[in-house]
């Protein structure tokens, strides 16, 4: 066995599916001197990979997870360890059938073969199933099982064949040395390793290892119960590991997966059983393996009955016994996403909270990210840099996963809110908002009013113009008050709490260079200018879009969204040279938006500063006095209206908020929620949002955001961006074009009008498939009411030949087609295309 080397380029901690995939891809991409450690023996060191049920269902509502899964399947297939079995997801209720129809939308959007089928269809392929237990099923023929341990061995061997890898098993990491903000050394019980990079890929143990470097890896080991029943004669008579499709009994949160002569029954229906990484037994202490904890049968008994109801002849077969039962540990996170990427310690990377179905895809993505600075599949939702401080607490992870565990097979509305551990970050005007009947949604721990019940009276005023939704699903986590607030803002004005904005100041002699290098737009502008800019990765994909204010020659303020704020801050911090500082202002500066045709009148009544168009131009900022309080006002808008973002010291914010509401009331202004700011206001203007329209797989050209000129100064992604523009100039069509589509008719077969919520596939009028230049199928990136237009709008990237105004297409929603028409292409807004309202 290999001994611990004294030095390495990179040390990968963990030899589960993730670590194994990672060393393979790092080696394939040219890295050498890779050392892989595990405290357990090979090929099964005792982590979650070793007891995984190893099946892969390919359709997920998230594109990121689906792409990682499909990439993983390809890799497993190439290694010869994938066995296709097909898989059913059963519905016992009509509510679940509706969810399966929504799953069909995702399958179509991501281009995965799937079909809704009858119980008899299921029975034909799974003869031992009782058809009276369910009403329908979602059939994915491409579902299969893998040998994840064998895959791991193959991938390690491939890296070793390249002379790139030294694997040392049975060695425990005892410390991580960080010096000057960089990882320097891994300490083990077999000796220390000097290294440039470390990747923590040790699943349920990752938090414990992260703590050694002061890095929070907020996941929790959680129990997933599984039993194995056999030998079942119906299974034993067929050769091989699997010859019947896998069944996910969605409404009982169980699955039944054949494994040779046995049927494995797994459950996500029991109470959340969480453990601490430090409490996981050692290999010696554990009966089976450290992550196969003693089975607690009481927790499983209800599922046993439900499984038996579904397959009585099989599970009750003569001689079939429960011969294996575990409380298997797996990793859960507070938001359900993996934890990938570089931590705040330079060179210290993570790849954890990953399922078997995503393992190889994650390995490839993280390896590409480490080697090239970006990955082909956008994994920004999984970026470890996303976590806000409150999310790094173990208590938060514990509370959120306790709440979400039961939702593993749940029906989750796209806007569904967590109930636990709320009220982490409250705006200074929170009390006022509560009195106004604010309905709070959470972003990055901030409680943000989505609408105000105090505006309910507006519903009568606007009548059907608020576009009420009669279907419960379409109107869940939604209110027509949002649209009423929208109309009032466009008619008079709205006051919007934007406290959640992530704000940081970059100051010092290197400040200009830092923002120039990170931002696409020209930031070498006069002091007092406001710049809206994309931020790219080296491949020209979006990392973010945000605004930069030049507050002084050597002082810039960056303002970005709460959800992606911490990742943006980390990205900028990596480009700030010594002697220049990056300071978070999120908690001490509060942003209040004031927009609408009366915004200027309202502000003029509160200040003696010149706020006329001549005196306070668009895309400028400066300090003004609002009723004696110093406020940094910035004339910009994300809702397409005249107005300002007002940056107020946190201590003054409640006062300014009250002042704006009181003085605004005389002009018809009302408090307006994020429902308008985040959706209706922007969608009418075709404004894009990071994480929806903008991600690392789309370019400025596709998003229609290119400006006439490219600044001379260098910036990350410049070469790629120039190449995209050159291709466009040479007449080559972009791979896709962002368009705004108008839904022409909402009437479903039942007569109920339906309203899409996002994620749905865009098809030809006759239901035919569209494919863009990436080989992807178009889907709705944002859906929302456009009350000022009286229409429901959809944003989607279309193949360029389809991106023609007036083009008749369709959107599939809950397995029905609705006619849509392309309303605009590129950046052109449907509302106020000349942007006169901004003046």
């Amino acid at each position, binding site marked *: 066995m290999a001994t611990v080397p004294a030095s390495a380029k990179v040390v990968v901690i963990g030899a589960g599916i993730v670590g194994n995939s990672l060393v393979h891809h790092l080696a394939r991409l040219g890295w050498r001197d890779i050392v892989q450690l595990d405290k357990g023996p090979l090929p099964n060191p005792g982590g979650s990979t070793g007891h995984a049920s190893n099946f892969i269902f390919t359709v997920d509502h998230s594109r990121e997870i689906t792409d990682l899964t499909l990439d993983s399947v390809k890799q497993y297939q190439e290694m010869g360890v994938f066995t296709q079995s097909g898989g059913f997801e059963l519905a016992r209720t009509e509510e679940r059938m509706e969810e399966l129809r929504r799953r069909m939308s995702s399958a179509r959007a991501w281009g995965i073969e799937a079909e809704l089928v009858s119980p008899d269809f299921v029975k034909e392929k799974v003869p031992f199933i009782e058809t009276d237990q369910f009403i329908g099923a979602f059939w994915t023929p491409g579902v299969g099982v893998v040998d994840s341990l064998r895959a791991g061995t193959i991938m390690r061997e491939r890296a070793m064949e390249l002379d790139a890898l030294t694997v040392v098993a049975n060695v425990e990491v005892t410390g991580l040395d960080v010096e000057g903000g960089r990882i320097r050394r891994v300490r083990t019980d077999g000796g220390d390793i000097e290294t440039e990079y470390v990747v923590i890929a040790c699943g349920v143990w990752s938090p414990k290892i992260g703590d050694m470097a002061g890095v929070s890896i907020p996941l929790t080991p959680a129990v997933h119960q599984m039993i194995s*029943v056999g030998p079942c004669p119906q299974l034993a008579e067929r050769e091989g590991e699997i010859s019947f499709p896998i069944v996910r009994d969605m409404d009982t949160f169980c699955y039944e997966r054949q494994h040779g002569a046995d049927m494995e029954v797994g459950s996500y229906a029991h109470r959340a059983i969480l453990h601490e990484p430090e*409490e996981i*037994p050692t290999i*010696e*202490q554990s*009966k089976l393996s450290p992550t196969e*904890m*003693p089975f607690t049968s009481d927790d499983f*008994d209800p599922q*046993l009955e439900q499984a038996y109801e579904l397959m009585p002849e099989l599970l009750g077969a003569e001689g079939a016994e429960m011969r294996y039962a575990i409380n298997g540990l797996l990793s859960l996170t507070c938001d359900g996403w993996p934890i990938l990427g570089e931590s705040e310690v330079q060179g210290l990377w993570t790849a954890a909270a990953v399922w078997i179905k995503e393992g190889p895809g994650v390995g490839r993505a993280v390896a590409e990210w480490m080697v090239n600075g970006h990955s082909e599949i956008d994994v920004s939702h999984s970026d470890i840099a996303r976590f806000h401080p409150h999310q790094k607490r173990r208590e938060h992870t514990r509370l959120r996963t306790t709440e979400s565990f039961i939702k593993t097979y749940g029906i989750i509305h796209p806007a569904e809110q967590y109930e636990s551990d709320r009220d982490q970050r409250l705006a200074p005007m929170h009390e006022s908002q509560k009195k106004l009947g604010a309905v709070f949604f959470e972003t990055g721990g901030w409680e943000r009013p989505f609408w105000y019940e105090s505006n309910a009276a507006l519903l009568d005023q606007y009548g059907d113009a608020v576009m009420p939704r009669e279907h419960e699903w379409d109107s869940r986590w939604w209110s027509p008050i949002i649209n009423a607030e929208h109309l009032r803002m466009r008619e008079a004005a709205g006051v919007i709490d934007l406290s959640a904005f992530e704000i940081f100041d970059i100051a010092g002699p290197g400040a200009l260079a830092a923002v120039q290098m990170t931002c696409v737009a020209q930031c070498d502008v006069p002091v007092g200018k406001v710049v809206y800019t994309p931020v790219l990765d080296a491949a020209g994909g979006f990392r973010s879009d945000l605004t930069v204010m030049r507050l002084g020659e050597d002082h810039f303020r960056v303002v970005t969204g709460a959800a992606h704020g911490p990742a943006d801050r980390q990205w900028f911090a990596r480009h700030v040279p010594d002697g220049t500082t990056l300071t978070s202002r999120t908690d001490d500066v509060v942003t209040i938006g004031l927009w609408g045709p009366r915004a200027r009148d309202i502000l003029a009544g509160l200040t003696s500063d010149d706020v006329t168009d001549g005196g306070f131009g668009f895309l400028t900022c400066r300090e003004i006095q609002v009723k004696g309080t110093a406020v940094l006002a910035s004339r910009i808008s994300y809702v397409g209206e005249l107005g300002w973002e007002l940056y107020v010291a946190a201590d003054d914010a409640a006062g300014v908020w009250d002042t704006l509401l009181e003085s605004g009331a005389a002009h018809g202004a009302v408090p307006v929620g994020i429902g308008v700011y985040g959706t209706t206001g922007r969608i009418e203007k075709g404004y894009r949002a990071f994480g929806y329209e903008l991600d690392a797989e789309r370019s400025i050209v596709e998003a229609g955001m290119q400006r006439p000129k490219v600044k001379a100064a260098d910036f990350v992604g410049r070469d790629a961006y120039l190449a995209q523009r050159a291709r466009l100039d040479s007449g080559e069509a972009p791979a896709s074009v962002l368009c705004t589509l108008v839904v022409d008719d909402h009437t479903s077969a039942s007569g109920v009008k339906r309203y899409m919520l996002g994620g749905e596939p865009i098809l030809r009028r006759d239901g035919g498939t569209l494919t863009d230049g990436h080989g992807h199928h178009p889907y709705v990136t944002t859906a929302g009411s456009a009350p000022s237009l009286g229409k429901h709008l959809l944003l989607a990237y279309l193949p360029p030949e389809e991106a023609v105004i007036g083009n008749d297409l369709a959107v599939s929603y809950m397995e029905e087609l609705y006619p849509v028409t392309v309303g605009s292409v590129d950046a052109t807004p449907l509302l106020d295309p000349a942007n006169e309202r901004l003046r």
Partner: protein
Amino acid sequence: MSTLVCVKRVVDSSSEVVLTEDGQAVDGRYAGFTMSAHEECAVELAVRIGAATVMTLGDADAVEQLRAALAVGCEAATHVVADAQAFGPADVAREVAAIVRDGGHDLVLLGNDAADTGDFQVGIRLSYELGWPVVNGATLVSVDDGVVTAEVDGPDGHETYRVPLPAVVTVLEGGVAPRYPSVPGRMKAKKVPIEERQPSAAPAGPARVRLLLPPPAPSTVQVLGKGPEAAAAVVDLFEQLGVLAR
């Protein structure tokens, strides 16, 4: 004919044994709880003999072991609700005897010894208490026409005992393979009512000072050398072992 089989909730000791801080018990945090392998065989034999009732003395958690026995075919269960740590072997024997007298059982099967404390006491004391014959360390037990046949593999060879009912037999693992529960068995076990009893008398206690772990066994690994230089030593060893011809 009615059989009583006695089980005890113990820590699964098939992995490293960890003691609680006070040294009074084995810590089951990691390994979980079970009944001993001897008792699993006793349950299997009791089920084969038929009309088996399972009993235990322990806290509320010990119901798990009763349900496990019910799931593999025991038909009734009796739970003496008590802190097992406070009961010595004589106390336990007295409680089992009380159940036997009330329940009219005529055969009692026990494990040869408890997996956690290893006292080897209860069976003998129970037979004394009841005035019944006892066979110790049987691997196979059957009943025919009022006669118990118990097979014992002793150091001096194989012994077969025939004793008339009523009788006590302590079971050593190895004669039968205990079955795993079936799904219907487990579901049925969940629905069987468990008779709860209070101890018939205050326990005298185990008189145990504390448990101690034996010192770790010395490593038997001998490093023969490293790299190609080790080859000669390996060949020597293989020859000694007879794997290679000299």
